[in-house]
């Protein structure tokens, strides 16, 4: 094999100009693919982070309680008992919290908005407080100072709320101001309460537009629910990728303990109201979901980015493949006498094929490794530079106000392996034709 690699390498060096242009082209496409994969991975990470900060655990045990068949109340009764059962049934857990959920009209002195309320127990939310960054006043108030006001940990107090900068801008409120929160209780009555804004956090993408955090006790009181009720038990695993498997295991364990668990429906809880209210049952049923189920309405963004990347890279790959194929045709034509000689001295067809394929594979491997390394470097540099995205629409899509690209070994290896194989495949036909050359034809080509 060594001599074939040597021949391939030296032939590539002999056709320097051709090899150089192909290497550059292949490197650039690989670099582009690595950057796009980094963008897609970064987007996924942002969505996971945002989703698991604002709206979901890696795995959720929520459910519906129906006093009568037409109800669809998104609550879990006997919270302590269910949580204990969950804690006993699942392994590989980092931590577990539970949060109340609601939907309310939030009214300030000058404006109002609809928002999803998340009632938190401040004692359990150290991760939330680590991730949320309070905004400078200038970020939500025209002519505001650079002072960061408020303290998210004050959500430990009753009737407190934490909102996001875009909401504060819209409601024209500041830390310390009061918001009136109006909800419809499970029994259909309207109830309102005043909440003091204890912090205004920086926006973290599209989801923070409608998320408001309150203290859990006050939210439950607002809905006239007792303290042993919750919205969802949120489980954070050591490995987020294990969520689907852990969900299956937890389902079996909870069913063994006598709980009724709904069929898996990969949608957020609020998309299930209509279906649940149409079902003919009463009482409590648990509903298990993963983080991706709860933000499935956002996954189109990743699909869109991946599709655009696929089409773009696909077009470039076709161009490169044609380039490699042409180059190999030229190489075969130029080296027909050599093929004839090699066949005459006893080289098999398979080895002739291998010799030409190796040339393309080596070219592919070198070029894609260079491109992969350059792509990883550029992606990491962009990520480290925290490039600010100034266009609101792009910010919403990226779910972040900075460009986040995440490139790991897997992305680089994927690009390198895929393009090296494509390079090899592009050379397959010319190499095959070379291997089928009749020795006498090739020798006569010598003249």
């Amino acid at each position: 094999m060594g001599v074939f690699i040597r021949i391939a390498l030296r032939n590539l060096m002999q056709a320097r100009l051709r090899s150089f242009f192909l290497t550059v082209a292949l490197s650039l496409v690989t670099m582009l693919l690595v950057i796009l994969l980094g963008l897609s991975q970064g987007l996924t990470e942002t969505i996971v982070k945002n989703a698991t900060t604002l709206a979901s655990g890696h795995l959720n045990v929520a459910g519906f309680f129906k006093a009568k068949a037409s109800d669809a109340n998104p609550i879990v009764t006997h919270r302590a008992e269910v949580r204990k059962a969950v804690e006993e049934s699942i392994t590989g857990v980092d931590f577990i919290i539970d949060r109340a959920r609601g939907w309310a009209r939030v009214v300030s002195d000058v404006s109002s908005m609809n928002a999803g309320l998340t009632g938190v127990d401040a004692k359990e939310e150290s991760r939330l407080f680590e991730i949320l960054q309070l905004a400078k006043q200038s970020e939500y108030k025209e002519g505001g100072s650079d002072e960061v006001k408020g303290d998210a940990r004050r959500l430990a107090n009753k009737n407190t709320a934490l909102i996001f900068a875009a909401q504060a801008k819209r409601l024209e409120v500041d830390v310390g101001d009061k918001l009136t929160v109006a909800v419809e209780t499970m029994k259909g009555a309207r109830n309102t309460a005043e909440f003091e804004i204890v912090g205004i956090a920086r926006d973290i993408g599209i989801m923070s537009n409608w998320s408001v955090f309150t203290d859990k006790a006050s939210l439950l009181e607002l809905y006239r629910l007792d303290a042993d009720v919750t919205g969802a038990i949120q489980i954070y695993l050591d490995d987020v990728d294990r969520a689907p498997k852990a969900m299956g295991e937890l389902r079996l364990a909870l069913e063994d303990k006598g709980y009724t668990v709904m069929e898996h429906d990969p949608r957020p809880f609020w998309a299930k109201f209509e279906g649940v209210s149409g079902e003919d049952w009463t009482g409590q049923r648990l509903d298990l979901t993963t983080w991706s189920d709860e933000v499935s309405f956002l996954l189109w963004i990743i699909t869109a980015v991946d599709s655009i990347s696929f089409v773009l890279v696909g077009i470039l790959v076709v161009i490169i493949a044609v380039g490699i194929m042409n180059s190999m045709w030229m190489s075969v034509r130029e080296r027909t006498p050599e093929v004839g000689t090699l066949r005459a001295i006893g080289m098999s067809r398979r080895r002739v094929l291998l010799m030409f394929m190796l040339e393309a594979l080596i070219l592919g491997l070198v070029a894609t490794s260079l491109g992969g390394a350059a792509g990883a470097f550029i992606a990491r540099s962009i990520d480290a530079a925290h490039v600010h995205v100034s266009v609101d629409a792009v910010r919403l899509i990226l779910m972040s106000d900075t460009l986040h690209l995440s490139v790991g070994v897997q992305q680089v290896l994927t690009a390198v392996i895929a393009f090296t194989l494509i390079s090899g495949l592009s050379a397959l036909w010319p190499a095959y034709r070379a291997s089928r050359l009749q020795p006498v034809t090739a020798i006569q080509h010598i003249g």
Partner: protein
Amino acid sequence: MRAMPAIVQLQGVHKDYPLGNLVVRALRGVDLTFDKGEFTTVAGPSGSGKTTLLNLVGCVDTATRGTVTVDGASTSALKESKLTELRLRKLGFIFQSFNLIGVLNLFQNVEFPLLLQGGLTKGERESRVRDIVDKVGLTEQMKQRPNELSGGQRQRVAIARALVTRPSIVLADEPTANLDSGTGNAIIDLMKHLNETEHTTFIFSTHDSRVMSRASRIVQLVDGKVVDDGHGHRTGAAAVAPLAEA
């Protein structure tokens, strides 16, 4: 009575090439036998069928009609993979234009057929290559690439490459055509020496009368037919046995 067993036999061999609407009859009913250890030249003017004959014996082409038997195997009955194996194990080629692999140095060019054959350790290959390169007198040029060698030196490398696998038959198509007469003579001397010392059968084509005179047997081809199958100076390995038996 034959001195040595036949290593190549051609019986009623025809070779036709289509050329547009025409058919070029390169060989027309050739019957020939080459014995082991012979040092034979196939002579004749351009277009007489010399190269075609060597191609058929070298298993790089097949006859239109007739039978070509090389080392006991009828080439028309063999599959491509078996023909390749026959070329690799039994035959050595020396080309008019040397046909060395430009990207490999002298040592690597000569070593290449051994790598294709497999079965030898690196040390055994190295020893075999050094031995044959020494015989062709190019030990000093071992690391040089073909483009750094003279025409005569390149042809010596081609000879070394053809002989390194210790083939039964070496076929040389006008091996001196691209060389000056001095170098050409030296190459023929070398081939003859190897024929005598290694007992390798040499069949080579030429239309150079000076080269022809060095052969132990001259097969004369004209228009695809053998017109003369005479013997020159019967020297070399093939010449020894008949005298001994006589």
